[in-house]
């Protein structure tokens, strides 16, 4: 990097494609690198910094030198060297450092042998990646921090990519990550899989973070884009990663199934103007049959574990009923009502109740559905939940009560933060249909 002209001449013609190549390696390798480094240096925040330094060095070197034959080992070695340099600067050249330096030399010697493979212990690395998942989704962190940290260290997304996905300034995401790392340090969060008594709840938090990312991608809570499918697909990929790490947990497969069976409908969810198309109006021929097959397979894996269906598996089963129906009329609404009742048992919530109301309206007519919706409206907990008013509007319209329907759609439009959705609702408020 001494002579800019020489360096520029040595680079490939297209620096953008070189940058993308580095980003691709990073997506594949980052979780394992950060996990391995955390175990080694005993400090998640430091490990993450070191990994980012190694990424920066790759971005500086690889466009000119090409991608090394074992990029993961290269990045890990650079990060370890940085760790040693840092300790040396702080005059803490202790036994731990000596041990790492020794490791590094040994690995480099082995990396040049006939196969070029580093010693490979997949189970140990998996355990470390799983620890990383639990740390990134730790309850001491805010929801936003869990999302940002998970996407960055487990998903291998850059800060810029996360910022773009959430329409947030890069500096905000950077701050979130810095604060999150400080919070983990301050709380003394250990690099470990939670103990048995905390495990179910902590796994629930991890699944919640992944589902939040997924939902943010397909029903953006704010802004003008209705869908950011790349975010949903990344959440699905991370759920598959988790399913391979904890294959004996039925709800992880349930979540994979739910995501697959929901994402299967993405190709039909927007019209040519980019407006949302309701389930009833979607061109079902555009649904992704392979995704439906994968989703049903994942649900079967959850069921095969024989521990009953949790909230994700039940929601997946509901999505499955829609996905396999050739039309709204062909849908087995009675089965969906039963699934919502089961869901209400294991995870009672007014939102589930609202969805049950929709299914009941389809199975037994709008009057029966409206009775449940009105009960919910009177209860007050969903007063500011815009879908409640949209559903009321829909059912009122079917009952021929156009004025009441218009009022409900207007209320729903007032409450939504999504601009496109508001436009659709306002149109219905104007016409009553």
């Amino acid at each position, binding site marked *: 990097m001494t002579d800019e002209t020489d360096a520029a001449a040595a680079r490939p013609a297209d620096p953008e*494609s070189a940058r*993308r*190549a580095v*980003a*691709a*390696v990073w*997506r*594949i390798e980052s979780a394992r690198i950060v996990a391995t480094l955390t175990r080694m240096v005993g400090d998640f925040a430091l490990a993450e910094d070191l990994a980012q330094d190694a990424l920066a060095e790759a971005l500086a070197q690889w466009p000119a030198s090409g*991608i090394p034959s074992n*990029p993961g080992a290269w990045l890990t070695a650079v990060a370890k060297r940085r760790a040693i340099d840092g300790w040396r600067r702080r005059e803490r050249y202790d036994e731990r450092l000596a041990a790492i330096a020794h490791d590094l030399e040994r690995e480099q010697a082995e990396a040049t042998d006939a196969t070029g493979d580093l010693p*490979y212990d*997949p189970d140990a690395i*998996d355990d470390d990646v799983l620890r990383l998942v639990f740390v990134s989704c730790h309850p001491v962190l805010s929801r936003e921090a869990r999302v940002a940290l998970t996407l960055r260290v487990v998903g291998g997304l850059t800060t810029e990519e996360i910022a773009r996905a959430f329409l947030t300034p890069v500096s905000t995401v950077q701050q979130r990550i810095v604060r999150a790392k400080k919070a983990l340090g301050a709380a003394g969060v250990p690099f470990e899989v939670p103990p048995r008594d905390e495990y179910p709840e902590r796994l629930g938090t991890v699944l919640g973070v992944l589902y939040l990312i997924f939902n943010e991608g397909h029903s953006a809570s704010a802004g003008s884009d209705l869908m950011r499918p*790349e975010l949903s*697909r*990344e959440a*699905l*990929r*991370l*759920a*598959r*990663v988790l399913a*391979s*790490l904890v294959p004996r947990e039925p709800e992880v497969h349930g979540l994979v199934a739910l995501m697959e069976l929901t994402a299967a409908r993405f*190709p039909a969810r927007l019209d040519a103007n980019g407006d949302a198309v309701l389930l009833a109006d979607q061109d*079902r*021929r*555009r*649904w992704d*049959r*392979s995704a*439906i*097959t*994968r989703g049903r397979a994942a649900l079967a894996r959850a069921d095969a574990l024989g521990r009953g269906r949790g909230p994700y598996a039940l929601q997946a089963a509901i999505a*499955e*009923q829609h*996905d*396999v*129906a*050739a039309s709204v009329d*062909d849908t*087995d609404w009675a*089965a969906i009502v039963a699934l919502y009742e089961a869901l209400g048992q294991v995870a009672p919530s007014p939102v589930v109740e609202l969805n049950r109301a929709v299914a009941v309206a389809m199975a037994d007519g709008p009057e029966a559905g409206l009775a449940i919706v009105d009960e919910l409206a009177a209860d007050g907990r969903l007063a500011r939940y815009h879908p409640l008013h949209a559903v009321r509007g829909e059912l009122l319209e079917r009952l021929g009560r156009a004025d009441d329907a218009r009022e409900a759609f207007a209320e729903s439009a007032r409450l939504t933060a999504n601009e496109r959705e508001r436009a659709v609702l306002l149109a219905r408020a104007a016409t009553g249909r």
Partner: protein
Amino acid sequence: MTKYMMIMRATDDAVEAFQDMPFDEVIAAMGRYNEEMMKAGIMLAGEGLSDASEGFVVDFTAEAPLVTDGPYGETKELFNGFWIIDVASKEEAVEWARRCPLGPGSKLEVRRVNDIEDFPQDNEWIRKEVGWRAEQAERLAADARRGAAQA
């Protein structure tokens, strides 16, 4: 995310050399590669193809299709298997392909899988394709109803 098909191709010589290699090592290397892709959450499908001698070719050069048994004498390279992966970029597909444990004489051809959006939607045959997928959906629905009835 974008789907890519990685198609394994090998020359006859490479296939023969492959048969001399220790079977356990080959299986272990491929198994590890598949496991890596599964763990990364990107592998959607993958199959290996049986020996070419069990295959056959239908040639449409003449007016009536001509069926010939394998192996296919004049072919320089044989397809031996494929994967379908779902990745964020072409570069990521390149990176996964690079890692495939194949030896001299072998190649991976990597092709992007078309989305339905890649075709003109008003074309009559595309509409038929879409219709065929809908029929498949109905079959799935029938399966589901049968499954529900049994449950």
